[in-house]
């Protein structure tokens, strides 16, 4: 019988995997930002699994939960910054994807 903690852990791992795939494959900046948030959610689930497993009869270990809250705040601010930059990129250049990698011997622009 799988425990809830194991399920949470596996779901977290799956989310991290999906997010990593999205971050690598998707070109649209907003999709990349969403993929990052998926990875983040996966990590928070893993923290949840850790908290659930560490607790005794009286509930979970509170320390990982505090870490998750901090992590969510950090992820929110980072996402806000990323979205603001993506909007700025769209307004300035009309593009929603990052330019391809800079050519090795970049000529004068």
């Amino acid at each position, binding site marked *: 019988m799988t425990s809830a903690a194991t399920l949470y852990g596996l779901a977290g791992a799956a989310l*991290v995997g999906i997010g990593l795939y999205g971050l690598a494959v998707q070109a649209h900046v907003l999709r990349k930002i969403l993929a990052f948030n998926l990875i983040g959610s996966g990590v928070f689930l893993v923290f949840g699994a*850790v908290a659930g497993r560490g607790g005794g009869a009286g509930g979970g270990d509170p320390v990982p939960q505090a870490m998750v809250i*901090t*992590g969510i705040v*950090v992820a929110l601010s980072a996402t806000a*910054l*990323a979205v603001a930059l993506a909007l*700025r990129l769209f307004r*300035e250049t009309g593009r929603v994807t990052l330019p391809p990698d800079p050519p090795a011997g970049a000529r004068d622009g």
Partner: protein
Amino acid sequence: MADGLADGPWAELLVALPLAGMLLALPLGGRQAHRLALLVLAAGPVLALLLAAQLWQGGVVGVALGGFAAPLGIALRADGLSVLMLLTTAVVLCATGLAARAGFAPRPGQGETRAGLLFWPLLLALWGALNAVFLGNDLFNLYVALELLTLAAVPLVCIEGKPEAVAAALRYLLFALLGSVLYLLGAALLYGAHGTLDITLLAARLQPGPATWMAGALMTAGLLAKTALYPLHLWLPPAHAAAPAAASAVLSALVVKASFFILLRLWFDVMPALAGLGGATLLGGLGTAAILAGSLLALRQERLKLAIAYSTMAQLGYLFLMFPLAGGGTEAQPWSAGAWTGGVLHAVSHALAKAAMFLVAGLVLQAAGHDRIRALQGLGRAMPVAVFAFGLAGLSLMGLPPSGGFVAKWLLLTAALASGQWWWAVPMLAGGLLAAGYVFRLLNPALSAGEGQGWRPVRRRWQAIPLALALLSVALGLAPLLPYLLLGLGRSPAAEEGLG
């Protein structure tokens, strides 16, 4: 020194003061923010020196914030490595702050600008985050400090709002976020396996196992993305080249070193016993690739700032040669302390030299309005002091004596030969030659006797700022014993005896 001075709350102040300054600078507004920021920055070297005195007298400084002891509380810890990085950071930021007045201090007769208001709080936030990284003794707090660092560094890249800078900043942010989320996943696994993230407690409790291995790999990969080690370097050159020169100086000199510092803590303090020859060799191999690729790309650039940014990518490679040189065996290795110290000294001397170079690039942009290398004929006559500073900094990058870079490379080379791993000496020597190539290529047009176009004059005192940094980078080679002694304080056993 009086006992009272040596017992002061210097470690706490080094984190709290910059952050308090950041909060105060915003309501002060664009006309006053730079004054407050410079005042706070000026306190930096003093505080770092006081902390050094505290360390010197009483050994490793440990602070449990609010009286809560680890594992629940947040612990700060300052050993020789922390203090050396704190000192370097304070000096580089002071110089950068002084130099940044040219671009971000309000001009008489002009209104408040957005860049002029935002630059200073961001610089202070960056400083607070760096200090929190160097003092943190808890892997989760190091994560928070790293994120704060990213959130301060990314806006600095695009503070002038140029489209290419916005794209570079976004790419930088995505790489950095990927890096920190991988690090956080590793931290979750470590907490799950050992029930603490306090570095000291964790090091005592650490048991090898799949969770620990996985955590180590994830955290290392995340930190490599933030340190821009080849092949995760793609974000660095555009971001460091597109940022305003003062920001580039801080980014190249200090910000990439913060994640490297955490990597050192992870490998040498937390899990030295797990660091096998394979992982260390992989890091060394990637470092070698970074040295060669970065130097060759630096040789091909047409623009001064891009060339300096690619040189950063190459110089970061040296830092990773210390991992295979400091470990792999089963017994105590006498050369490992040399490799470790060489790597850290390289980080410090590169920080000073690279900040000097970017500040010179900023002066060039100011004087010429562009930074195309070929069109810089006659620059040596227009601003001799700045060109001299660039040359001195180049000396340190090449590793020529007497300079900090020389001592660092000498220690690493000695470790390579003493440990019988002579092959690591090859990229070091090749990298030195290539560095000579790109530094001379940058200096050559500046020293040639062309007329150039009408340079806007740059006052000597602006040119003196990068000169001071470059001189310090050289002075590190003249007095190598001081940082050497400092680094010995509270050094982890793994740094003395080798990983593994």
